[in-house]
């Protein structure tokens, strides 16, 4: 089977844009198969007119997927038992039908990312202070490596946090 990789700019920033892009790809016969590292894996098939919707839900039960299925949304793939993508006919009803529940979708993600980013920030600062002490060159290098890893973690939680925060603020302003 022919496969193709599509990269993601981060769901906190580009969710809508990427769902529309997946729809365009489906029109050309490239269908979403599953999440891939920092993107999506698409598989070749017949061109189809579909819509994609994404939802965040930690460890949902069967009832959750049943509600989607019975209202015309087929479950395509999930990652981490947390992010789920559904496929529907072009006329299927939107999965979120009111602003109040849509705000909770992003508020939960914002809280999770915010907590992770804050924890990493504290560790990052603590380590930075420790690094100011006098260390042997081996130790200094090791500390630098760890610090670098934490910096990467901080970027991958801090940026999504800001993205979700901005999204929620925008929604609350519009309502």
């Amino acid at each position, binding site marked *: 089977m022919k496969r193709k990789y599509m990269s993601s700019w981060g769901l906190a920033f580009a969710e809508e844009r990427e769902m529309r892009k997946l729809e365009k790809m489906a029109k050309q016969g490239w269908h979403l198969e599953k999440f891939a590292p920092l993107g999506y894996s698409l598989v070749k098939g017949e061109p189809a007119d579909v819509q994609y919707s994404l939802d965040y839900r930690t460890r949902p039960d069967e*009832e959750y997927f049943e*509600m989607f299925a019975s209202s015309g949304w087929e479950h395509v793939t999930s990652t981490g038992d947390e992010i789920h993508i559904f496929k529907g006919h072009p006329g299927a009803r939107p999965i979120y*039908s*009111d602003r109040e*529940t849509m705000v909770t979708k992003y508020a939960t993600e914002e809280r999770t990312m915010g907590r992770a980013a804050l924890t990493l920030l504290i560790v990052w600062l603590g380590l930075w202070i420790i690094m100011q002490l006098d260390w042997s060159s081996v130790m200094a290098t090791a500390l630098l490596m760890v610090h670098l890893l934490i910096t990467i973690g901080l970027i991958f939680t801090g940026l999504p946090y800001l993205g979700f925060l901005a999204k929620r603020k925008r929604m609350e302003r519009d309502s």
Partner: protein
Amino acid sequence: MPRNDTIELGELTDSTFYILLALTEPRHGYLIMQFVEELTAGRMQIGPASMYTIIKKLVAAGLIHPLDGDGKKKSYLITDAGRDLLRDDVKRRQAIVEDARFILEGEGHV
């Protein structure tokens, strides 16, 4: 965090209002969607993600409770607390409509 917890304010959103109305009889998720759509002649369509979110919230608030049944199509029924809140919200909505009638239908000018 989200400052949209209308249940705690004692006010129901339109979706929550209709879901409580549907659950005056035992119904599962999709039946609630169908009931609301038929009752409102298609004016109100509740999406599955909104439905799931609201049901979880109503259960947590003690306004509806799950009935025994298989996990896939769980049915729910309104509780006494839910019924009281629904009645209060009907009154609130009625008052809004009466205010509007008073102005728009000219009773204010008689």
